[in-house]
């Protein structure tokens, strides 16, 4: 009995002493604050696909984040930065699990992620309800920044991205097919992922709107290696362009097997940023020559310096980024850290308070941010709510011999927005 009394006394004392901590007298924010004691690090979360078949996308973004942190010597607000990486896989369940772990950690100021659009659908409600922010470097599905639930939109406040919305990319693919390739008939293939499906639908709709025929809309599954069945069916509908915005290695299988499919000899294969990597051309071999791809077009001195830094520091043990979203991740991490710096308020005892609503507002107010991926302006109106990329850092590339044989990357640009006639209306 005596012992029980003692336990209750201790518990009671604990409650009494911890009340001020919960009350957060200094915090005036509507969503509460992240409190960082004077000798605690600033904790940044990351929800990335770092295992499974898509892990190299996650590693690509992770490298960008790590370089952004080391670019500040690992310090923010005069404290060390700690990066907490949770595996969000490439699925809604994975995103949900990662977001729950991030949301449960009260020291995290905000998170970079997710890698895949599918994972973002699982993560967004949890992050948003926890009052946190997430900035994705590679989600491109249009539904994520659309708040019209009847149209399939899933946007919730607190979500931002530095990757381009596929409304830009899909439309660009369609315009290229019509204006440059003079295509009259298109076949589209997706793999069931919201990203690839969204892209295929946007491309098909824009293509039809520009007066073309959509003769086939089909799908493969992730993990398929034998594409002969779907290619036979596509050959039967005789398209001029086959649009396959799927990931590697399915795109590699599709392109290399299409070269041996009777009836598809003259069709142009077009893919998107899910296949935008140097290994796509090398793995596909001779069949890759002439493949057109839309992808992130990042260039300039700052980007060259970034690549040099990557080669020097080798995040993840690689000489060069394994995919195309490292620069977006670098920008995302910097936007988050700048915003934290801007809204942080220091109390007398050295504790720093970061208001959650203030952080959201600060990111939403980003305008003409000079990032590696060009000028970024975060928008707040659906269907672009949370979109910070403006779609200008996109181009159409065409794979040539040097990409296949010598591993040169990226391929030459054959078309970009400045060459478009119809983009001003889009």
């Amino acid at each position, binding site marked *: 009995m005596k012992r029980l009394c003692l336990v209750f006394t201790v518990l009671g004392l604990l409650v009494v002493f911890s009340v001020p901590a919960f009350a957060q007298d200094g915090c005036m924010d509507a969503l509460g604050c992240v409190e960082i004691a004077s000798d605690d690090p600033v904790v940044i979360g990351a929800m990335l696909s770092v295992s499974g078949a898509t892990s190299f996308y996650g590693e690509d973004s992770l490298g960008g984040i790590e370089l952004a942190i080391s670019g500040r010597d690992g310090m923010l607000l005069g404290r060390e930065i700690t990066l907490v990486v949770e595996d969000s896989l490439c699925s809604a369940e994975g995103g949900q699990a990662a977001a729950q772990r991030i949301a449960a950690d009260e020291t995290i100021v905000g998170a970079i992620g997710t890698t895949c659009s599918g994972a973002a659908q699982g993560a967004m409600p949890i992050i948003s309800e926890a009052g946190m922010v997430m900035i994705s470097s590679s989600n491109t599905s249009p539904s994520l920044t659309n708040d019209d639930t009847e149209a399939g939109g899933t946007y919730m406040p607190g979500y931002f991205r530095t990757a381009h919305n596929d409304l830009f990319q899909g439309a660009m693919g369609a315009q290229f097919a019509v204006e440059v390739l003079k295509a009259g008939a298109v076949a589209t293939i997706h793999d069931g992922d919201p990203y690839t499906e969204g892209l295929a639908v946007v491309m098909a709709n824009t293509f039809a709107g520009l007066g073309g025929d959509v003769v086939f809309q089909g799908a493969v599954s992730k993990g398929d*290696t034998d594409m002969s069945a779907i290619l036979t069916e596509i050959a039967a509908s005789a398209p001029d362009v086959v649009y396959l915005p799927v990931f590697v290695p399915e795109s590699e299988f599709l392109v290399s097997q299409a070269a041996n499919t009777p009836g598809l000899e003259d069709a142009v294969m077009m893919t998107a940023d899910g296949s935008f990597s140097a290994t796509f051309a090398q793995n596909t071999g001779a069949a890759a020559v002439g493949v057109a791809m839309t992808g992130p077009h990042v260039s300039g001195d700052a980007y060259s310096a970034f690549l040099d830094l990557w080669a020097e520091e080798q995040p993840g043990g690689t000489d060069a980024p394994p995919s195309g979203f490292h620069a977006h991740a670098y920008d995302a991490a910097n936007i988050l850290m700048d915003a934290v710096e801007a809204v942080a308020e220091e109390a007398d005892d050295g504790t720093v308070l970061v208001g959650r609503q203030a952080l959201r507002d600060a990111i939403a107010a980003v305008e003409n941010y000079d990032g590696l991926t060009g000028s970024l302006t975060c928008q707040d109106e659906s269907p672009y709510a949370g979109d910070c990329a403006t779609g200008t850092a996109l181009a159409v590339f065409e794979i040539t011999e040097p990409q296949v044989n010598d591993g040169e990357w990226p391929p030459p640009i054959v078309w970009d927005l400045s060459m478009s006639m119809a983009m001003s209306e889009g």
Partner: protein
Amino acid sequence: MFKWRTDDFSWVDFTIDVLRVIIVLGVVIGAWNTLSSGRISLAQWVNLFAAGLSQGSIYALIALGYTLVYGILLMINFAHGEVFMAGAFSTVFLAEALNRTGFLNAQPLLAILLMIAFAGLVSMSVAILLERIAYRPLRGSPRLVPLITAIGASFFLQYTFRGLYGSGFKAYPGVNALQGAIEIGGISIPVVQVFVFCAAIFLMLCLYWLVERTRVGKAMRAVSENKEVARLMGIDIDWVIMFTFGVGGFLAGSAGVINGLFRPQGVNFYMGFIPGIKAFTAAVLGGIGNIPGAMLGGLFLGVIEAIGPNLVLAGLGIPGANQLKDVIAFTMLVLVLIFRPQGILGERLSETKA
């Protein structure tokens, strides 16, 4: 067949019979619709069939590993897909080197034999280590224990190889001698598919000879029949089991190279997962524990996967039929488990051996 017509009516039999009728009707209607629409020509059907046979022969080679181990230990080695990956992933570097030096195209047959031997050895070592480290200490424990261990071993192997070779995708180089197609009566079949099929059949015949005609094969059959009696006859059971894992591993490794010639892309640490599951399906389809069954099951699964979506699903007006290829494969598995649990050629192992 229609047991429910007799006096001892049973709802289970009735439901199964209704299911049978629905499936047969669906297949017939779908096939009829597709064939009468003439959307796909005869030559295209033959191409699909040939591609299916090649894919199926690769499934069969992997399935043999499942079936050999099951036949001898009554355990499903779920890490077998990773044994396949180990050989395929390691040999891609050898293939690249052979291609760079020009040896691959100067001496294609020799180079391919070298690659198969290398992949076979890598996979064999992995399989033997797996048996020695992960399974042997658990022999005699409840059957669920090695099963869970196998799943753990599978993850362990995947991430070990990711650590070794990275997470990116690689591809086997093209072999010039295998380019082009053979023309038979206006139908062209790619040379590589003919080669893949013949190579796989040759390896399967070798295995059949090994098991049926050699001393060690006799020992394998004896151990699978009854371990205790085999031990009393002076057979070193541990050695025979290790040998069986080694043979299964060698076949999986060579399947990795043959797969690389047939579908060069998509080589990474995760590549064993789906072929592993498909091969397991093939082994169950043919009758697990039965060697000709695994071969037949593999070929059958490959062909069904290649032809099924276009023939049946598209004919029934199901959108995105090709995305449902796996659905066909796994529906076959479920159907076999319902209608013929012992598989196409299988014996009732549960009764004879348990």
